[in-house]
């Protein structure tokens, strides 16, 4: 029987020991002596969050298809175990083999959100691996990062040997092959990194030097090694049907956040909302074949025993075969006690019909994401949702028996005025009014309209990447304006308003658009005790501010200025296909309130057509 890394005493003392024992259904076990490469795949957050992530499941399956690689999973130990591991100097281990990952060939870390950065340091630290890439030798694993945050990897540059920019399905096998050659050759780590730097999409931060102007902006960003590419091309799978997808995802024992079969129906989004990073990064939109998805639905449900299946993508309503797929899932699986969990869909006759089939109307709510309260501001952000569409959809739903609506907005968008903020409350009230237009005897009691706001954070590779953010007090003031206006509405008793904390927003802002220098503040914050920053109960704004002070970094430099169009941005060396010219054009259109049509209506010439596939070539073959 497998020997566990932690003793019974420890496992019985910590919360949810199932987080640390592995052994789940479909977890891959191999003979460690029969493989050439041991790969630890890390999600730097707690098990239940990490296990819900589709990307790891895809790459775990892909890497383990090869007999010469054993890929295992690692998640951040929760704070209780974290403390015990430090006290007893227990090295962080992988779930499958329970072996310390410091002895592995690779530590691959997926970086999904900025607020997990301290947990990356926690993982390396607990693994007993030096935090800085420059302190790691041939004796240590190669630390490689991937995921959405690596489109601006600079804040983490000092801690990683390699970043993989783009979708994981393309060059991992290549890298593994090169690694095997290198391992057999006995050459230095430097030589391995030089080899890796030549693979498309791989970025070795140590091979680049950054200099700065006196005002703090970047003066130059230059390769210092002849093997390093000047521009890193984003990696992308053009054919998302004939590619890797797990038939047997790992099934956790404890309830994960996403405890279900997930079918990723498409990548990318045709919409072009100007605040949305994913909408730009994953261009062009690529759909999976509906027959492939049906087949996987069968296999994955059978192999996991999950009682729920959900669809995943950006803007799922734009998937051209959605009706066929959803109808199939309902007809095939509903009768077998499988829940069909729908993504948020555009509200129309079709979606209301399927929603009424798979959800209890009395318990479910409708979701709209207008993102901005006024049409003016929605034009600025290029969000195609109009008030008419919202009221029409809500009206249909109310007549069909629904009485709960959720509305999502952002505060702090470029050009926002007080009127735009107040329009959030007014729009919520209009939805409520639409409900009360229904005669009393035909409606289902009172309605509940919940409006939520988050604060806008400009992200790299969006038309808003040059925009300024605000300071904490301004954010709180904005939320107060909306809150006050909510209370002034006719139907205020049917309205509810939630807003996000401003503190986390500020840090996310710094790390989203930060440069190499902010890594110092990150390390300092970690040393001061910051960890699990995405968890409200652990987030310590005071310590973070102290970390910035201690390292002499100015939050305002990163958050409180509009960047010049010709400023060198820390992520400019990455080419995602979408051109900087297009983003600049869109930034200008935004300021003029000019709308850009979606990819299917009219090509806006963003540059992603260079990949030679997806929506750019739909109907052209």
């Amino acid at each position, binding site marked *: *029987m*497998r020997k*566990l890394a932690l003793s*019974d*005493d420890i*496992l*019985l003392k910590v919360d949810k*020991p*199932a987080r640390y*024992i*592995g*052994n*789940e*259904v479909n977890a891959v076990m191999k003979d460690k002596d029969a493989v050439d490469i041991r790969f630890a795949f890390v999600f730097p957050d707690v098990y239940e969050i990490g296990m819900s992530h589709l990307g790891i499941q895809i790459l775990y399956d892909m890497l383990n298809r090869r007999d010469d690689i054993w890929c295992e999973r690692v998640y951040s130990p929760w704070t209780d175990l974290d403390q015990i591991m430090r006290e007893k100097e227990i090295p962080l281990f992988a779930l499958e083999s329970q072996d310390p990952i410091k002895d592995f060939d690779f530590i691959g870390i997926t970086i999904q959100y900025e607020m997990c950065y301290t947990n990356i340091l926690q993982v390396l630290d607990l693994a007993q691996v030096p935090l800085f890439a420059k302190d790691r030798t041939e004796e240590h694993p190669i630390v490689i990062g991937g995921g959405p945050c690596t489109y601006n990897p600079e804040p983490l540059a000092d801690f990683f040997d390699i970043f993989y920019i783009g979708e994981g399905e393309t060059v991992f096998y290549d890298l593994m092959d090169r690694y095997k050659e290198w391992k057999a050759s006995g050459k230095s780590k430097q030589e391995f990194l030089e080899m890796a730097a030549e693979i498309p999409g791989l970025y070795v931060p140590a091979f680049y030097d950054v200099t700065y102007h006196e005002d703090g902006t970047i003066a130059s960003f230059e390769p210092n090694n002849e093997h390093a590419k000047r521009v890193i091309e984003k990696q992308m799978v053009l054919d998302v049907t004939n590619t890797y997808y797990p038939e047997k995802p790992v*099934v956790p*024992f*404890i*309830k994960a956040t996403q405890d279900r079969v997930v079918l990723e129906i498409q990548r990318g989004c045709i919409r072009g909302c100007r605040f949305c990073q994913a909408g730009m990064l994953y261009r062009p939109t690529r759909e999976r074949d509906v027959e492939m998805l049906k087949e996987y639905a069968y296999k994955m*449900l*059978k*192999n*996991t*025993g*999950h*009682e729920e299946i959900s669809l995943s993508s950006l803007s799922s309503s734009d998937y051209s075969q959605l009706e066929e797929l959803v109808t199939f899932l309902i007809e095939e699986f509903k009768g077998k*006690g499988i*829940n069909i969990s729908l993504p948020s869909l555009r509200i129309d006759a079709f979606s209301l019909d399927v929603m009424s089939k798979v959800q*209890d109307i009395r318990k479910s709510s409708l979701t709209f994401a207008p993102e901005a309260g006024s049409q003016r501001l929605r034009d600025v952000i290029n969000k195609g949702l109009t008030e008419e569409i919202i009221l029409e959809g809500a009206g249909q739903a109310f007549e069909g028996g629904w009485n709960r609506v959720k509305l999502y907005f952002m505060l702090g968008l470029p050009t926002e005025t007080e009127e735009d903020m107040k329009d959030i409350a007014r729009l919520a009230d209009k939805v409520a009014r639409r409900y009360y237009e229904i005669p009393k005897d035909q409606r289902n009691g009172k309605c509940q309209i919940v409006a939520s706001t988050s604060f806008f954070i400009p992200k790299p590779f969006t038309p808003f990447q040059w925009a300024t953010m605000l300071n904490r007090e301004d954010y709180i003031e904005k939320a107060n304006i909306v809150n006050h206006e909510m209370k002034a509405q006719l139907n205020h008793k049917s309205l509810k308003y939630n807003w996000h904390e401003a503190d986390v927003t500020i840090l996310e802002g710094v790390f989203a658009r930060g440069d190499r220098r902010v890594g110092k503040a990150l390390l300092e914050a970690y040393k001061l005790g910051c960890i699990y920053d995405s968890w409200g109960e652990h987030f310590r704004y005071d310590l973070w501010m102290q970390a910035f002070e201690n390292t002499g970094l100015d939050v305002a430099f990163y958050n409180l200025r509009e960047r010049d169009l010709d400023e060198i941005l820390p992520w400019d060396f990455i080419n995602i296909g979408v051109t900087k010219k297009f983003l600049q054009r869109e930034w200008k259109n935004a300021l003029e309130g000019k709308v850009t049509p979606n990819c299917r209506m009219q090509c806006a010439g963003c540059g992603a057509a260079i990949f030679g596939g997806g929506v750019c070539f739909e109907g052209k073959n």
Partner: protein
Amino acid sequence: MKARIKFRKFGAMKFIGHLDVMRFFQKVMRRADIPIAFTGGFSPHMIMSFANPLGVGVTSDGEYFDIELTEEIDMGAAVECMNQTMVEGIEVVNMVPISDDKKRTGMSIVAAADYLSNVKNDAFPENWKEKAAGFMEQEQILIVKKTKKSEKEVDIKPMIYKFEIRENGVYMQVATGSVENLKPEVVMQALGQYLGADLEEASFVHHRLEVYALAEIGKSKEFVSLDKVW
């Protein structure tokens, strides 16, 4: 029709709590294509009831749950199917048809269970086995039972049906179920107290051997393991 499934829980699986084991077996039912019945309503769930929850950290050779089937199946084949999609640490031992009588579900008929409890460290005095012989000779075995509001003394001796010293630990048969329920750790604590051991230091490992119902056989009542009563 109804069926009772007996399984073992060992190794790392002892860290999986009762609710998660239930969820685990719901998924086993689907993976093994067991034609299990569902309740009605908008969110139907499987008709499945577990006999007696096992604490986290405890292993077992005799765990049970009852399910309702929509059709007759070959139970031997079903056991094989289930074990093919299993993990290390859970093993289905058998599956038997049981009466459709609602009152006779595993949950309600459990009356006793056997345990092996071992002392994990040397918290007990060296000659504890000799001294322990007198444990059951006491007139009463009093323990303090703490509830939210009060503390009261309870005599657990009537709930201990068998008690033997075996190798490095204790074999016991104790009252289990919805009427009376005695946990093995309570017995071991009482034993430790009797031996004058430092209970702060003591740690035990418990293993459940079997779960019984009280069955009428002729004129007498006997404990019969759950897979033998239907």
